[in-house]
Protein backbone atom coordinates (compact mmCIF):
# COMPACT_ATOMS: atom_id res chain seq x y z
CA UNK A 1 0.00 0.00 0.00
CA UNK A 2 1.64 3.27 -1.06
CA UNK A 3 1.33 6.69 0.55
CA UNK A 4 -1.21 7.97 -2.04
CA UNK A 5 -3.60 5.13 -1.24
CA UNK A 6 -3.22 5.75 2.50
CA UNK A 7 -4.07 9.42 2.11
CA UNK A 8 -7.33 8.55 0.35
CA UNK A 9 -8.86 7.21 3.54
CA UNK A 10 -11.13 9.85 5.15
CA UNK A 11 -9.96 9.01 8.69
CA UNK A 12 -6.33 9.44 7.63
CA UNK A 13 -7.11 12.79 6.00
CA UNK A 14 -8.86 14.02 9.18
CA UNK A 15 -6.02 12.73 11.35
CA UNK A 16 -3.43 14.40 9.14
CA UNK A 17 -5.23 17.75 8.98
CA UNK A 18 -6.12 17.89 12.69
CA UNK A 19 -2.73 16.54 13.79
CA UNK A 20 -0.79 19.01 11.62
CA UNK A 21 -2.70 22.05 12.80
CA UNK A 22 -2.64 21.02 16.47
CA UNK A 23 1.11 20.35 16.14
CA UNK A 24 1.81 23.82 14.73
CA UNK A 25 -0.40 25.48 17.35
CA UNK A 26 1.14 23.57 20.25
CA UNK A 27 4.71 24.23 19.20
CA UNK A 28 4.12 27.97 18.64
CA UNK A 29 2.32 28.45 21.95
CA UNK A 30 4.75 26.12 23.70
CA UNK A 31 7.65 28.38 22.75
CA UNK A 32 6.12 31.32 24.62
CA UNK A 33 5.18 29.09 27.56
CA UNK A 34 8.73 27.75 27.85
CA UNK A 35 10.24 31.24 27.58
CA UNK A 36 7.83 32.52 30.24
CA UNK A 37 8.62 29.61 32.60
CA UNK A 38 5.02 28.40 32.31
CA UNK A 39 5.83 25.06 30.66
CA UNK A 40 3.88 22.98 33.13
CA UNK A 41 0.60 24.81 32.60
CA UNK A 42 -0.07 22.47 29.65
CA UNK A 43 0.40 19.45 31.89
CA UNK A 44 -1.87 20.88 34.59
CA UNK A 45 -4.59 21.85 32.12
CA UNK A 46 -4.50 18.43 30.46
CA UNK A 47 -5.26 16.91 33.88
CA UNK A 48 -8.16 19.33 34.25
CA UNK A 49 -9.39 18.32 30.79
CA UNK A 50 -9.48 14.70 32.04
CA UNK A 51 -11.90 15.77 34.80
CA UNK A 52 -13.90 17.91 32.36
CA UNK A 53 -14.22 15.10 29.81
CA UNK A 54 -15.39 12.81 32.64
CA UNK A 55 -17.99 15.45 33.53
CA UNK A 56 -19.24 15.55 29.93
CA UNK A 57 -19.44 11.75 29.71
CA UNK A 58 -21.17 11.61 33.11
CA UNK A 59 -23.98 13.89 31.93
CA UNK A 60 -24.08 12.34 28.46
CA UNK A 61 -22.79 15.51 26.72
CA UNK A 62 -20.23 15.74 23.93
CA UNK A 63 -17.05 15.84 26.08
CA UNK A 64 -15.30 18.66 24.19
CA UNK A 65 -18.25 21.02 24.60
CA UNK A 66 -17.85 20.65 28.38
CA UNK A 67 -14.06 20.49 28.39
CA UNK A 68 -13.36 23.72 26.49
CA UNK A 69 -15.18 26.10 28.92
CA UNK A 70 -14.09 24.18 32.03
CA UNK A 71 -10.41 24.14 31.03
CA UNK A 72 -10.52 27.81 29.98
CA UNK A 73 -11.96 28.66 33.44
CA UNK A 74 -9.26 26.53 35.09
CA UNK A 75 -6.56 28.41 33.17
CA UNK A 76 -7.93 31.75 34.37
CA UNK A 77 -8.15 30.32 37.90
CA UNK A 78 -4.45 29.38 37.78
CA UNK A 79 -3.58 32.97 36.83
CA UNK A 80 -5.80 34.45 39.53
CA UNK A 81 -4.45 32.13 42.24
CA UNK A 82 -0.87 33.13 41.43
CA UNK A 83 -1.73 36.84 41.13
CA UNK A 84 -4.15 37.41 44.00
CA UNK A 85 -3.26 34.71 46.52
CA UNK A 86 0.51 35.34 46.15
CA UNK A 87 1.09 31.67 45.33
CA UNK A 88 3.87 30.69 42.89
CA UNK A 89 2.60 29.73 39.43
CA UNK A 90 3.79 26.12 39.65
CA UNK A 91 1.97 25.65 42.97
CA UNK A 92 -1.22 27.13 41.46
CA UNK A 93 -0.92 24.68 38.53
CA UNK A 94 -0.45 21.83 41.02
CA UNK A 95 -3.61 22.79 42.94
CA UNK A 96 -5.87 23.08 39.87
CA UNK A 97 -4.35 19.98 38.25
CA UNK A 98 -4.97 17.84 41.36
CA UNK A 99 -8.59 19.00 41.59
CA UNK A 100 -9.09 18.17 37.89
CA UNK A 101 -7.70 14.66 37.98
CA UNK A 102 -9.37 13.86 41.33
CA UNK A 103 -12.72 15.08 39.95
CA UNK A 104 -12.29 12.82 36.91
CA UNK A 105 -11.49 9.76 39.02
CA UNK A 106 -14.46 10.42 41.35
CA UNK A 107 -16.86 10.74 38.39
CA UNK A 108 -15.41 7.58 36.83
CA UNK A 109 -16.02 5.71 40.10
CA UNK A 110 -19.58 7.02 40.41
CA UNK A 111 -20.50 5.98 36.88
CA UNK A 112 -21.05 2.56 35.47
CA UNK A 113 -20.01 2.21 31.91
CA UNK A 114 -17.96 5.10 30.61
CA UNK A 115 -14.67 4.12 32.21
CA UNK A 116 -13.36 2.62 28.97
CA UNK A 117 -14.28 5.75 26.98
CA UNK A 118 -12.72 8.03 29.60
CA UNK A 119 -9.48 6.12 29.87
CA UNK A 120 -9.07 6.15 26.08
CA UNK A 121 -8.49 9.92 26.51
CA UNK A 122 -5.46 9.23 28.66
CA UNK A 123 -3.42 8.20 25.62
CA UNK A 124 -5.50 9.68 22.78
CA UNK A 125 -6.22 8.22 19.36
CA UNK A 126 -5.33 10.38 16.41
CA UNK A 127 -7.07 8.04 13.94
CA UNK A 128 -10.42 8.53 15.72
CA UNK A 129 -10.57 12.32 15.09
CA UNK A 130 -14.08 13.39 14.06
CA UNK A 131 -14.93 15.86 11.28
CA UNK A 132 -15.96 18.50 13.88
CA UNK A 133 -12.67 18.09 15.73
CA UNK A 134 -10.70 18.46 12.49
CA UNK A 135 -12.58 21.69 11.67
CA UNK A 136 -12.08 22.97 15.24
CA UNK A 137 -8.35 22.27 14.98
CA UNK A 138 -8.05 24.30 11.77
CA UNK A 139 -10.09 27.23 13.16
CA UNK A 140 -8.18 27.24 16.46
CA UNK A 141 -4.81 27.05 14.76
CA UNK A 142 -5.68 29.97 12.50
CA UNK A 143 -6.81 31.94 15.57
CA UNK A 144 -3.64 31.17 17.50
CA UNK A 145 -1.33 31.97 14.60
CA UNK A 146 -3.12 35.25 13.82
CA UNK A 147 -2.98 36.16 17.52
CA UNK A 148 0.76 35.52 17.57
CA UNK A 149 1.23 37.64 14.43
CA UNK A 150 -0.87 40.57 15.70
CA UNK A 151 0.46 40.45 19.28
CA UNK A 152 4.03 39.39 18.41
CA UNK A 153 5.80 42.39 19.96
CA UNK A 154 3.48 42.46 22.99
CA UNK A 155 4.19 38.75 23.61
CA UNK A 156 7.90 39.34 23.00
CA UNK A 157 8.10 42.25 25.42
CA UNK A 158 5.98 40.62 28.15
CA UNK A 159 8.04 37.41 27.94
CA UNK A 160 11.37 39.25 28.00
CA UNK A 161 10.69 41.67 30.87
CA UNK A 162 7.11 41.87 32.12
CA UNK A 163 7.62 44.83 34.43
CA UNK A 164 9.29 46.93 31.76
CA UNK A 165 6.57 45.95 29.28
CA UNK A 166 4.02 47.56 31.63
CA UNK A 167 5.92 50.85 31.51
CA UNK A 168 5.54 50.89 27.72
CA UNK A 169 1.77 50.58 28.00
CA UNK A 170 1.51 46.86 27.23
CA UNK A 171 -1.42 45.29 29.10
CA UNK A 172 0.55 42.36 30.46
CA UNK A 173 -2.40 40.93 32.42
CA UNK A 174 -4.38 40.77 29.19
CA UNK A 175 -1.42 39.16 27.36
CA UNK A 176 -1.05 36.55 30.15
CA UNK A 177 -4.77 35.76 30.04
CA UNK A 178 -4.71 35.53 26.25
CA UNK A 179 -1.77 33.13 26.32
CA UNK A 180 -3.28 30.84 28.95
CA UNK A 181 -6.77 30.81 27.40
CA UNK A 182 -5.31 29.87 23.99
CA UNK A 183 -3.23 27.20 25.73
CA UNK A 184 -6.37 25.85 27.44
CA UNK A 185 -8.25 25.44 24.15
CA UNK A 186 -5.19 23.93 22.47
CA UNK A 187 -4.75 21.44 25.30
CA UNK A 188 -8.35 20.21 24.97
CA UNK A 189 -7.90 19.60 21.24
CA UNK A 190 -4.53 17.95 21.79
CA UNK A 191 -6.00 15.47 24.27
CA UNK A 192 -7.69 13.62 21.39
CA UNK A 193 -4.44 13.57 19.40
CA UNK A 194 -1.88 12.53 22.01
CA UNK A 195 -3.85 11.99 25.22
CA UNK A 196 -3.84 13.61 28.64
CA UNK A 197 -0.49 12.10 29.59
CA UNK A 198 1.52 13.49 26.68
CA UNK A 199 0.04 16.92 25.93
CA UNK A 200 2.89 18.66 27.71
CA UNK A 201 5.37 16.86 25.42
CA UNK A 202 3.60 18.36 22.40
CA UNK A 203 3.86 21.82 23.97
CA UNK A 204 7.31 21.73 25.51
CA UNK A 205 9.64 19.42 23.57
CA UNK A 206 9.91 21.25 20.20
CA UNK A 207 10.61 24.55 21.95
CA UNK A 208 13.13 23.11 24.41
CA UNK A 209 14.95 21.11 21.73
CA UNK A 210 15.33 24.04 19.36
CA UNK A 211 15.73 27.17 21.46
CA UNK A 212 19.22 26.09 22.48
CA UNK A 213 20.31 26.20 18.83
CA UNK A 214 18.37 29.07 17.29
CA UNK A 215 19.05 32.59 18.46
CA UNK A 216 16.06 34.44 17.05
CA UNK A 217 12.44 34.22 18.14
CA UNK A 218 10.96 34.47 14.62
CA UNK A 219 13.26 31.70 13.34
CA UNK A 220 12.34 29.64 16.38
CA UNK A 221 8.62 30.06 15.75
CA UNK A 222 9.03 28.81 12.17
CA UNK A 223 11.32 25.93 13.04
CA UNK A 224 9.36 24.56 16.01
CA UNK A 225 6.29 24.23 13.72
CA UNK A 226 8.26 22.49 10.95
CA UNK A 227 10.06 20.27 13.43
CA UNK A 228 6.79 19.23 15.03
CA UNK A 229 5.22 18.48 11.60
CA UNK A 230 8.20 16.30 10.64
CA UNK A 231 7.85 14.35 13.87
CA UNK A 232 4.12 14.04 13.29
CA UNK A 233 4.74 12.51 9.84
CA UNK A 234 7.09 9.95 11.39
CA UNK A 235 4.48 9.18 14.04
CA UNK A 236 1.79 8.58 11.37
CA UNK A 237 4.06 6.18 9.54
CA UNK A 238 4.79 4.41 12.79
CA UNK A 239 1.07 4.25 13.69
CA UNK A 240 -0.01 2.93 10.33
CA UNK A 241 2.65 0.36 9.59
Amino acid at each position, binding site marked *: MDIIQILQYAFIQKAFIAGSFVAITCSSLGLFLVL*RKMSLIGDGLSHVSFGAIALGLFFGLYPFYVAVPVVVLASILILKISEKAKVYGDAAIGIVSAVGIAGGVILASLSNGFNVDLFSYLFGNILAISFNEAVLSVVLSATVLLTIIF*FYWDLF*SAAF*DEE*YAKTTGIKTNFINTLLTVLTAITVVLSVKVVGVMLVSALLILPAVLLYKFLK*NLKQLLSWVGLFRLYRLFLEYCFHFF
Partner: protein
Amino acid sequence: MDSIVEVENLSVCYGATEALNNISFNIERGDFVGLVGPNGGGKTTLAKAILGLLPIDSEKILLFNQAIEVFGDFKRIGYLPQKHTGINQLFPASVEEVVLLGILSSKKWPKKINQEDWHRIDELLKSLGISNLKGKLISDLSGGQQQKVLLARAIASEPELLILDEPSTALDPNSREQFFAKLKELNSQKKTTIILITHDTGYVGKYANKLLYVDRKLLFFGGIADFCPSGEIESCFEKSDKHIIWHQHK
Protein backbone atom coordinates in the same frame (compact mmCIF):
# COMPACT_ATOMS: atom_id res chain seq x y z
CA MET B 1 7.22 75.75 35.08
CA ASP B 2 5.61 72.55 33.76
CA SER B 3 4.93 69.97 36.42
CA ILE B 4 6.14 66.53 35.29
CA VAL B 5 5.68 64.45 38.44
CA GLU B 6 3.42 65.53 41.28
CA VAL B 7 3.15 63.25 44.30
CA GLU B 8 0.93 64.00 47.27
CA ASN B 9 0.81 62.01 50.52
CA LEU B 10 2.11 58.81 48.97
CA SER B 11 2.28 55.71 51.15
CA VAL B 12 3.17 52.20 49.98
CA CYS B 13 2.91 49.01 52.04
CA TYR B 14 4.24 45.52 51.39
CA GLY B 15 1.87 43.47 53.52
CA ALA B 16 2.20 44.84 57.02
CA THR B 17 5.49 46.61 56.27
CA GLU B 18 5.28 50.25 55.35
CA ALA B 19 7.87 50.99 52.66
CA LEU B 20 6.98 54.66 52.14
CA ASN B 21 5.10 57.00 54.41
CA ASN B 22 3.40 60.22 53.44
CA ILE B 23 5.73 61.39 50.67
CA SER B 24 4.98 64.62 48.76
CA PHE B 25 7.06 66.44 46.15
CA ASN B 26 6.81 68.10 42.78
CA ILE B 27 9.29 67.61 39.92
CA GLU B 28 9.32 70.14 37.10
CA ARG B 29 10.37 69.97 33.45
CA GLY B 30 14.14 69.94 33.02
CA ASP B 31 14.88 68.88 36.61
CA PHE B 32 17.72 66.42 37.17
CA VAL B 33 16.79 64.82 40.48
CA GLY B 34 19.15 62.60 42.44
CA LEU B 35 17.01 60.12 44.40
CA VAL B 36 19.17 58.90 47.25
CA GLY B 37 18.79 57.11 50.55
CA PRO B 38 19.97 54.00 52.41
CA ASN B 39 19.35 50.41 51.25
CA GLY B 40 15.75 49.49 52.00
CA GLY B 41 14.83 53.17 52.27
CA GLY B 42 12.21 52.92 49.52
CA LYS B 43 13.97 54.47 46.48
CA THR B 44 13.02 51.72 44.01
CA THR B 45 9.54 51.50 45.54
CA LEU B 46 9.09 55.23 44.96
CA ALA B 47 10.23 54.92 41.33
CA LYS B 48 7.86 52.00 40.73
CA ALA B 49 4.98 53.84 42.39
CA ILE B 50 5.54 56.81 40.06
CA LEU B 51 5.47 54.41 37.10
CA GLY B 52 2.21 52.84 38.27
CA LEU B 53 3.81 49.43 38.88
CA LEU B 54 2.69 49.15 42.50
CA PRO B 55 -0.63 49.42 44.30
CA ILE B 56 -0.46 52.67 46.25
CA ASP B 57 -2.23 54.54 48.96
CA SER B 58 -2.01 58.13 47.85
CA GLU B 59 -4.12 61.19 47.48
CA LYS B 60 -2.63 61.65 44.03
CA ILE B 61 0.22 60.92 41.68
CA LEU B 62 0.13 63.03 38.57
CA LEU B 63 2.36 62.33 35.56
CA PHE B 64 2.32 65.16 33.03
CA ASN B 65 -0.78 66.44 34.87
CA GLN B 66 -2.64 63.14 34.33
CA ALA B 67 -3.62 60.84 37.21
CA ILE B 68 -1.43 57.72 37.19
CA GLU B 69 -4.52 55.48 37.14
CA VAL B 70 -5.57 56.81 33.74
CA PHE B 71 -2.16 57.73 32.34
CA GLY B 72 -1.68 56.33 28.83
CA ASP B 73 1.01 58.44 27.21
CA PHE B 74 3.79 55.95 27.89
CA LYS B 75 6.11 57.13 25.11
CA ARG B 76 6.85 60.20 27.27
CA ILE B 77 8.46 57.95 29.89
CA GLY B 78 11.73 56.03 29.79
CA TYR B 79 12.65 53.54 32.51
CA LEU B 80 15.87 51.72 33.27
CA PRO B 81 15.15 49.12 35.97
CA GLN B 82 17.59 47.94 38.59
CA LYS B 83 20.05 45.48 37.04
CA HIS B 84 19.08 41.82 36.65
CA THR B 85 15.53 42.36 37.83
CA GLY B 86 12.91 40.98 35.53
CA ILE B 87 15.02 40.25 32.46
CA ASN B 88 14.67 36.74 31.11
CA GLN B 89 18.31 35.74 30.63
CA LEU B 90 17.45 32.71 28.45
CA PHE B 91 15.33 34.69 26.03
CA PRO B 92 16.69 34.62 22.46
CA ALA B 93 16.62 38.40 22.02
CA SER B 94 19.25 40.35 20.12
CA VAL B 95 20.47 43.76 21.29
CA GLU B 96 18.59 45.62 18.55
CA GLU B 97 15.36 43.77 19.42
CA VAL B 98 15.75 44.67 23.10
CA VAL B 99 16.31 48.35 22.26
CA LEU B 100 13.31 48.21 19.93
CA LEU B 101 11.10 47.33 22.92
CA GLY B 102 11.66 50.92 24.03
CA ILE B 103 9.75 52.34 21.06
CA LEU B 104 6.74 50.01 21.41
CA SER B 105 5.16 52.68 23.62
CA SER B 106 4.81 54.92 20.56
CA LYS B 107 3.12 52.18 18.49
CA LYS B 108 -0.56 51.45 18.29
CA TRP B 109 -1.95 47.92 18.01
CA PRO B 110 -1.16 45.96 15.90
CA LYS B 111 2.43 47.05 16.45
CA LYS B 112 4.31 47.05 13.14
CA ILE B 113 8.03 47.72 12.97
CA ASN B 114 9.28 49.38 9.80
CA GLN B 115 12.67 50.11 8.26
CA GLU B 116 12.64 53.60 9.72
CA ASP B 117 12.38 52.12 13.25
CA TRP B 118 15.34 49.79 12.65
CA HIS B 119 17.32 52.71 11.24
CA ARG B 120 16.48 54.75 14.35
CA ILE B 121 17.74 51.93 16.57
CA ASP B 122 20.97 51.76 14.53
CA GLU B 123 21.56 55.48 15.00
CA LEU B 124 20.89 55.26 18.73
CA LEU B 125 23.32 52.35 19.18
CA LYS B 126 25.94 54.33 17.25
CA SER B 127 25.43 57.41 19.41
CA LEU B 128 26.03 55.31 22.53
CA GLY B 129 29.08 53.63 21.00
CA ILE B 130 27.61 50.13 21.13
CA SER B 131 26.73 49.49 17.47
CA ASN B 132 29.23 46.58 17.53
CA LEU B 133 26.82 44.74 19.89
CA LYS B 134 23.80 45.13 17.57
CA GLY B 135 23.34 41.52 16.44
CA LYS B 136 24.51 39.87 19.66
CA LEU B 137 22.23 38.09 22.09
CA ILE B 138 21.58 40.12 25.24
CA SER B 139 22.38 37.05 27.36
CA ASP B 140 25.88 36.84 25.80
CA LEU B 141 26.82 40.33 27.02
CA SER B 142 28.64 41.34 30.18
CA GLY B 143 26.77 43.15 32.95
CA GLY B 144 28.15 46.54 31.90
CA GLN B 145 27.27 45.98 28.22
CA GLN B 146 23.75 44.90 29.18
CA GLN B 147 23.40 48.07 31.22
CA LYS B 148 24.31 50.21 28.19
CA VAL B 149 21.77 48.34 26.06
CA LEU B 150 19.08 48.91 28.67
CA LEU B 151 19.92 52.62 28.76
CA ALA B 152 19.50 52.66 24.96
CA ARG B 153 16.09 50.97 25.43
CA ALA B 154 15.11 53.56 28.05
CA ILE B 155 15.89 56.53 25.82
CA ALA B 156 14.75 54.97 22.51
CA SER B 157 11.36 56.70 22.56
CA GLU B 158 13.05 60.06 23.29
CA PRO B 159 11.15 60.36 26.56
CA GLU B 160 10.48 63.59 28.40
CA LEU B 161 10.86 61.83 31.76
CA LEU B 162 13.65 59.33 32.37
CA ILE B 163 13.69 57.20 35.53
CA LEU B 164 16.95 55.34 36.13
CA ASP B 165 17.36 52.85 38.96
CA GLU B 166 21.00 52.41 39.94
CA PRO B 167 22.18 52.52 36.32
CA SER B 168 25.91 52.82 36.92
CA THR B 169 26.62 49.89 39.26
CA ALA B 170 27.99 47.56 36.56
CA LEU B 171 29.93 50.20 34.64
CA ASP B 172 33.69 50.72 34.64
CA PRO B 173 34.93 54.26 35.51
CA ASN B 174 35.32 55.28 31.85
CA SER B 175 31.88 54.01 30.85
CA ARG B 176 30.44 55.66 33.95
CA GLU B 177 31.78 59.06 32.90
CA GLN B 178 30.37 58.62 29.37
CA PHE B 179 27.07 57.46 30.79
CA PHE B 180 26.63 60.50 33.05
CA ALA B 181 27.80 62.81 30.26
CA LYS B 182 25.04 61.35 28.06
CA LEU B 183 22.48 61.98 30.81
CA LYS B 184 23.70 65.54 31.19
CA GLU B 185 23.43 66.05 27.42
CA LEU B 186 19.83 64.77 27.40
CA ASN B 187 18.99 66.99 30.37
CA SER B 188 20.57 70.17 29.11
CA GLN B 189 19.93 69.89 25.36
CA LYS B 190 16.58 68.09 25.16
CA LYS B 191 15.27 69.25 28.54
CA THR B 192 14.66 65.62 29.55
CA THR B 193 13.56 65.42 33.17
CA ILE B 194 15.68 62.81 34.95
CA ILE B 195 15.12 60.94 38.21
CA LEU B 196 18.33 59.10 39.04
CA ILE B 197 18.51 56.55 41.83
CA THR B 198 22.14 56.02 42.71
CA HIS B 199 24.68 55.45 45.42
CA ASP B 200 27.25 57.41 43.38
CA THR B 201 26.76 60.43 45.58
CA GLY B 202 29.63 62.30 43.94
CA TYR B 203 27.90 62.15 40.54
CA VAL B 204 24.64 63.35 42.07
CA GLY B 205 26.34 66.51 43.28
CA LYS B 206 28.08 66.99 39.95
CA TYR B 207 25.10 66.53 37.62
CA ALA B 208 21.81 66.79 39.52
CA ASN B 209 20.16 70.12 40.32
CA LYS B 210 17.81 68.68 42.94
CA LEU B 211 18.07 66.04 45.60
CA LEU B 212 15.34 63.79 46.95
CA TYR B 213 16.41 61.90 50.06
CA VAL B 214 14.08 59.15 51.26
CA ASP B 215 14.33 56.77 54.14
CA ARG B 216 10.75 55.49 54.26
CA LYS B 217 9.74 59.10 54.60
CA LEU B 218 10.92 62.17 52.77
CA LEU B 219 13.89 63.67 54.61
CA PHE B 220 14.91 66.23 52.05
CA PHE B 221 13.68 67.56 48.73
CA GLY B 222 15.13 70.66 47.20
CA GLY B 223 18.01 72.21 45.33
CA ILE B 224 21.47 70.72 45.77
CA ALA B 225 22.67 74.09 47.08
CA ASP B 226 20.22 73.87 49.98
CA PHE B 227 21.25 70.34 50.91
CA CYS B 228 24.42 70.96 52.88
CA PRO B 229 23.03 73.65 55.16
CA SER B 230 19.85 71.61 55.79
CA GLY B 231 19.51 70.63 59.41
CA GLU B 232 16.99 67.84 58.69
CA ILE B 233 19.52 65.55 57.07
CA GLU B 234 22.23 66.29 59.61
CA SER B 235 21.73 62.87 61.19
CA CYS B 236 21.80 60.99 57.85
CA PHE B 237 25.29 61.80 56.62
CA GLU B 238 28.78 62.29 57.84
CA LYS B 239 29.90 65.86 57.21
CA SER B 240 32.40 64.73 54.54
CA ASP B 241 29.68 62.82 52.62
CA LYS B 242 27.49 65.88 52.62
CA HIS B 243 30.30 67.86 51.04
CA ILE B 244 30.87 65.15 48.37
CA ILE B 245 27.21 65.23 47.41
CA TRP B 246 26.97 68.96 47.49
CA HIS B 247 30.03 69.22 45.23
CA GLN B 248 29.80 72.97 45.20
CA HIS B 249 32.27 73.94 47.86
CA LYS B 250 35.03 76.16 46.60
